[in-house]
């Protein structure tokens, strides 16, 4: 009954701290004339989901260095990065790399 694209957004490695410290968000992206891509998703996230300090997540039109984007557990680089066309039920994981030991 919901119009729009249902996707799961997940965060890890500390990236969740910028999103209200919640690691998993089930979201519905509103219907749009153009297909949703990671590029448009990032803008949507910045406007709707990001709680603080956007520069720690986004730089320019992409994620900042040190954040890996994984679509259904595969590196987004294998799928076209920003231009990947999001499909219904996709799980998109944003993981901040850790450096401690």
């Amino acid at each position, binding site marked *: 009954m919901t119009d729009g694209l249902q996707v799961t957004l997940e965060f890890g*490695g500390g990236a969740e701290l910028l999103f209200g410290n919640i690691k998993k968000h089930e979201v519905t992206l509103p219907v749009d004339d153009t297909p949703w891509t990671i590029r448009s998703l990032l803008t949507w996230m910045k406007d709707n989901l990001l709680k603080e300090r956007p520069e720690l997540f986004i730089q320019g039109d992409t994620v900042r260095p040190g954040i890996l984007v994984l679509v259904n557990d595969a590196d987004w680089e294998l799928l076209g990065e920003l231009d990947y066309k999001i499909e219904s039920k996709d799980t998109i994981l944003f993981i901040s790399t850790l*450096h401690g030991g």
Partner: protein
Amino acid sequence: MDKISNLEKQIAYLQEVLRCKEEELRALQANEQHASFCSPDKLSKDDVERFSRQIIIPAIGCKGQMALKTSSILIVGVGGLGCPAAQYLAGSGVGHIGLVDYDEVECSNLHRQLLHTEDSIGVPKVTSASIALKKLNSSLRISEYHTQLNSSNALNIVQKYDIVIDATDNVATRYLLNDACVLSGKPLVSGSALRLEGQLTVYNYNKGPCYRCIFPKPPPPETVTNCGDGGVLGAVPGVVGVLEALEAIKIVLGCSGILSGQLLLFSAESSAFRNVRLRTRNASCDVCGENPKISHLIDYEQFCGAKATDKDSSICLLREEQRINAPALFDSFVSKCEGLLIDVRSPEEFEMCAVPRSLNIPLKNIDEPDSVSQIITALQDKQAEQNPFPVYVVCRRGNDSQKAVLMLEKVLKDQNVAVRDLTGGLHAWARKVDSDFPIY
């Protein structure tokens, strides 16, 4: 007389024969022992008795155990990851382990760096770990490097080993180690941990990607959290360190299923491992690509804009009159009950230890309307007393408190207040004013 001298001569001759025979025997025994311990194609009685439980696994066998015995593995960082990695490698029968760490053992290491003990506080980590590992396996050869790995020594050290384990705690050393491994053709097993999460992968193995293929640009320094600031549950690097040892052992054994081109994510919170697929090797990678730009090691601290340690350095954002030292703060806030003291650390840190009567407002919330009204309410109760009213800000080391002063000066500009921060933070407080206050 003749009889006596004759006998003496015979005895001397026999003694000489005896000496020669004894020497021959010793040499043969030594050879045999050497052969049984060090033979490149045979396991000794001790080896069999010690390692039988893993030798009888078909994937290992005598051949695999021999491969371990003749292998050499370098562990960079003998902390939360390096300790468990070293322990399991030593246990498995790896012949030669190299340990690199510039640091000495501190009390705050002991919750997760379990090769070190209370007795070894102040001792170089490589020495402390080496003693513990030799107790576990006396025939293990250990090379200790009590030094900071850097662009001038890294290749020389890395080249001596078959496999390298990255058990470091900072971005600059991770890039350095990656480039050193690519330039010398060594696989790099890389692990990291923070809070309740761990990450593990293998770089530069069997035409797989290197660290730079995945992360061509270093993260902005302000986005990097170390264990001292973010915290880490000891068992988490324990899990990742043991997995690093396991990947290194699998590489020695020539197993398939090496974690190359994949990243293993471990979450202690959800008790889950997640294995994600990484990109392939980047043909235009700066160091492992077809036309590499990096042919020798560079300045990694400059490249990353951050120090090659996990120690925090001091910043200086304020003028001298915007700061107060620990004895003067004690005199004003404690002895004379003047002013308001705001502690900008996290609630968890504040709960651990705090100056009595101080108010906890974490730095990240300091300029939020709720926080500002909380401060103004606190001021209204007392403000008539002094003009301008002193507002003191403290944090752990005196860095965040400076940022807080700048933010508070803006949001409290309509109040008649003088905002100052404690130079050197609660570390200075503990050293100069209250020796019962913990330094963490």
